[in-house]
């Protein structure tokens, strides 16, 4: 694990905080590193937008906030517009393919990876596990944490009755990520394969 600043954002109901919490749990409890999660509690974060910040580190985290994220998981267009430009040069953007239209950023060398997490979750029968699909995808793309650590954190975060479904969701996202890594990151501004349904 290396010092990494993450932001995960989307709209309420997508399980943004849960996604961040699973990653933090995997890093700090399963892998015994350090993770500090904060959330945007300001009124500006209401009305749909929802965002969590996560600092992962091999040593204790001192400054609790994210200054310039190394990696962002953006699950809505609003979140993309609001946060994408804050990414660190050379950083990684992970987006929900059907909900985010990636646009040109004034930041060099940003890598973009997209996954239709909602659609995959729907195919699994429960739209609500989209955040866990996204967590799996994050795991594969970022390579920050062990696959097993994340999967264990997912299982520890959900009621036992839903463990199987969430494991499936996680694996689906992870597999999609591994395939995506083979084909490489998207170019910014690239229209295809991102399709925004309007």
């Amino acid at each position, binding site marked *: 694990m290396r010092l990494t600043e993450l932001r995960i954002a989307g709209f309420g109901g997508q399980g943004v905080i849960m996604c961040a*919490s699973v990653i*933090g749990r995997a890093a*700090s409890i399963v892998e015994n590193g350090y*993770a*500090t*999660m904060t959330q945007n509690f300001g*009124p500006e974060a209401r009305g749909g937008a929802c965002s969590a910040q996560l600092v992962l580190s091999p040593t204790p985290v001192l*400054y*609790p906030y994210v200054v310039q994220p190394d990696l962002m998981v953006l699950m809505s267009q609003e979140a993309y517009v609001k946060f994408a430009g804050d990414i660190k040069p050379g950083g990684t953007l992970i987006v929900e393919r059907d909900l985010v239209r990636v646009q040109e950023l004034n930041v060099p060398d940003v890598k973009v990876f997209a996954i239709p997490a909602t659609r995959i979750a729907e195919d699994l029968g429960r739209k609500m596990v989209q955040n866990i699909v996204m967590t799996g995808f994050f795991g594969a793309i970022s390579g920050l944490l062990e696959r097993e650590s994340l999967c264990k954190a997912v299982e520890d975060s959900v009621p036992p009755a839903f463990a199987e479904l969430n494991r499936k969701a996680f694996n689906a996202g992870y597999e999609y990520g591994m395939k995506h890594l083979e084909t490489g990151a998207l170019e910014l501004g690239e229209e295809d394969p991102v399709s925004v349904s309007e």
Partner: protein
Amino acid sequence: MHADPVGVLTGAHFLDGDHAACEGAIAAGARFSAGYPITPSTEVVERFSHRAPKIGATFIQMEDELAASIAILGAVWGGVKAFTVTSGPGFSLMMEHIGYAAMTETPCVFIDVQRGGPSTGLPTLPAQADMMQVKWGSHGDYEIIALCPNSPQECFDLTIKAFNFSEQYRVPVFVMMDEVVGHMTEKVVIPRAEEIEVEPRRWTTQDKSSFQLFAPCGEEQTPEMAKAGDGYQVHVTGLTHDERGYPNMTPAVQDRMVRRLVSKIRDNAEKICLTEQHDIEGADVVVVSYGITSRVAQRAVETARAEGLKVGSLRLITAWPFPEHIIRAIAPKVKGIVVAELNLGQMVREVERCAGGQCRIAHVGHAGGTVHKPEQILKAIQEVAR
């Protein structure tokens, strides 16, 4: 004694500070809480309301903070350990009962998750601006104990400590969190119950006819407790009272009683003052901070040391009683002390008072809403070290 395992969620958890503080309270033996919702503290009692019915505890949501802050005192005299939770505006309403708890020597814990003020201020954003209010907010002379956690783990650990101090000294104890610490989520390790030291209430076994509810015992100058229903016919009043608890409004009794309320804490201050000190020996500059600011300050200290500056750090875990003896020892040996806090000048006054002009004091104030940038603190270190 050890914690009751019924309430102890042994293991590693990924918890925010509010939830961790609730677990600390439960581990410490709290079995009653009365609350009134207020951001950013509400999660503490939300969790308690969820946990209470499964551990033989009671939660009641009261009609306001005045009610919450005295319902817990009623519960304490009914024989349980109790606490309430609030933030700035609610804390202002509770001031009356801080005085009442101090005057009646009622062991209890208040958790204040500080947000920006004055007034409604910044409900969802941090500050450390209740630090003087917690000490001086109620009228009259009294002493309290206030602890400042800087992580969810400490929200757990120090809430237990707060309950222990409250029983040891029969005094209200305050866990002075801030919004960042309250809402940040980190790993919290909850030990096994037998590894958690819990201070039991010091129930009296003295004779019913001669027991005095307010007669000091031991070097802690703290009276033993009896509860309603024990047959002691206790009388508890906020009026100036003698050792039996009877109102006695004379200058002599006032002097005797109030002096003891103050001295039981002041005389034991060195035992109560918890600090974390790094590299103070030989330092040119010492950075004093507490709560979330201590983490930000530590980053500044590390940068300064990397630049070759001789910088030490003093973290106030106990803010009240103020660790006067430590500041008095540091002041003559350093060029200056940098005090960083999320307010425009509160604990720095204590530092100035104790330093007594023997070194430079630089205050890095902040009106709240977010934490300092480490560079702000670094700049002050560099200036003082020059």
